[in-house]
């Protein structure tokens, strides 16, 4: 095994462990009674926080590639994105099964009437096709260009997730606004970077 490969392996394991850590901490806190007086709300809040954190982290490699030319991080993007889905799924499942205890009437009313829940639900729905098509086989099946276009939905999911958080809090907007600011930077870099380079533009003009 080459030095580069073994380094990547170790980094892969490190990222994987980091992804599992927030979940492990919830388990650890549950065992030592550290989730406070309202553990269900605490679990929901923490899962939502980490879903959004990993979702934004999964968008960072592209921005860093555009802005700084770093390409190495792109290797871990899929795993980070899958962790975002993992926490989003647990967040949603906890809301359905633990918080609401499958009270479908109440859940339906929430999704229709409460706009912060509507948009949170939408964020989760947007992540589902991305998680499903996260395998190499799906990239080949869709073709890289189409797969890539599909996965741009992650930006919309992040946007919905941030709005979900902003609309949820009562008065203290500091945390959701930090997420909003990071997303704004990521989006801006992505949009500026999406403009074709001067050479490419010239080539396109000639092709016309």
């Amino acid at each position: 095994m080459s030095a580069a490969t073994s380094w990547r392996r170790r980094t892969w394991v490190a990222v994987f462990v980091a992804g599992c850590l927030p979940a492990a901490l919830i388990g650890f806190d549950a065992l030592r009674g550290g989730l406070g007086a309202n553990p269900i709300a605490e679990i929901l809040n923490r899962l939502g926080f980490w879903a959004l954190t990993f979702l934004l982290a999964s968008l960072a490699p592209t921005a860093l590639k555009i802005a700084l030319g770093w390409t190495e991080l792109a290797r871990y993007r899929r795993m980070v994105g899958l962790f975002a889905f993992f926490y989003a799924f647990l967040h949603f499942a906890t809301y359905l099964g633990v918080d609401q205890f499958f009270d479908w009437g109440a859940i339906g009313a929430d999704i229709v009437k409460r706009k912060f829940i509507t948009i949170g639900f939408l964020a989760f729905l947007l992540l589902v096709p991305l998680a499903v098509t996260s395998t190499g086989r799906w990239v080949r099946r869709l073709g890289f260009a189409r797969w890539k276009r599909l996965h741009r939905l992650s930006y919309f999911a992040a946007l919905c997730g941030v709005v979900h958080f902003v609309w949820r809090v009562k008065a203290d907007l500091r945390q959701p606004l930090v997420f909003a600011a990071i997303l704004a930077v990521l989006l801006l870099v992505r949009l500026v970077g999406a403009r074709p380079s001067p050479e490419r533009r010239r080539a396109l003009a000639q092709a016309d």
Partner: protein
Amino acid sequence: MKDDVVTPRVLYFRRREFLALGAGSVVTAAGLSLARPARAADEPSLPLLPNVKKGPFATDEAQTPYTDVTHYNNYYEFGTGKGDPAASAGAFPPRPWKVTFDGEIGKPQTVEIDELMKWAPIEERIYRMRCVEAWSMVIPWVGMPLGEIIRRLEPTPKAKYVAFTGLFDPQKMPGQRLGVLAWPYVEGLRLDEATHPLTLLAVGLYGHVLPNQNGAPLRLVVPWKYGFKGIKAITKVRFVEKQPPTTWSRMASDEYGFYANVNPEVDHPRWSQARERRIGEFFKRKTLLFNGYADQVAQLYAGMDLKKFY
């Protein structure tokens, strides 16, 4: 480079199992937390209050453990996290403390807290507490019926409302250094609500002196209203003719009204108020009109549209 150089193939096909494992862990974690192992700090360490009488209106429902009542607080003067008040109110000095009564009363005055505590019998009142965030507790408060105190102040016929002001001191209340809410915290009641026998000025909890994080040395308790009406660290009580401003309705008037009566039929715009989670319980329970005190207080609002005056 092949995919499996970076992602070990064995983990690839286990994504569904991974999700199921996660979901199972969350259910276990929630269950474990609610099973609540005995905790060390479940006893009050503050001084016991002498001569506390058993008061009326006590509910016989299971009381929320002391640790939960003192570690799950909305008291933005000490931070917006539920655990912030317990973590940062330790150094707050609840004595010496003076309370000023003024406005439309015959006997305006400033009184020392220990003197004020002699104005009325000190009673234990075991009340339900329903937070606007749809969780609830059962809390054994110790305090004085506000009505008895108001009687001694001799309100004039112009006194229609009571306006309360909390302490403003960013040195002692670190949360006030943030502009999350407009400080100081202000609250208000109609005079007939303030003099209702249920309404309490609390000075204690579980028979002991009120902890700082619960609003020491003096806080309001209005059990048929959402918890945010219960202004903490009260320094000023003014009797006025017009409805006074209140902090949360100033912050978002479409979400928090002046009355803030617990009402399962009137939702908060962003969440339902039909049910609540009693702290320590897994299943949500139905929220009761006026938090179950309708027999005592419904007549105060006879003929009023509670959807309009929320």
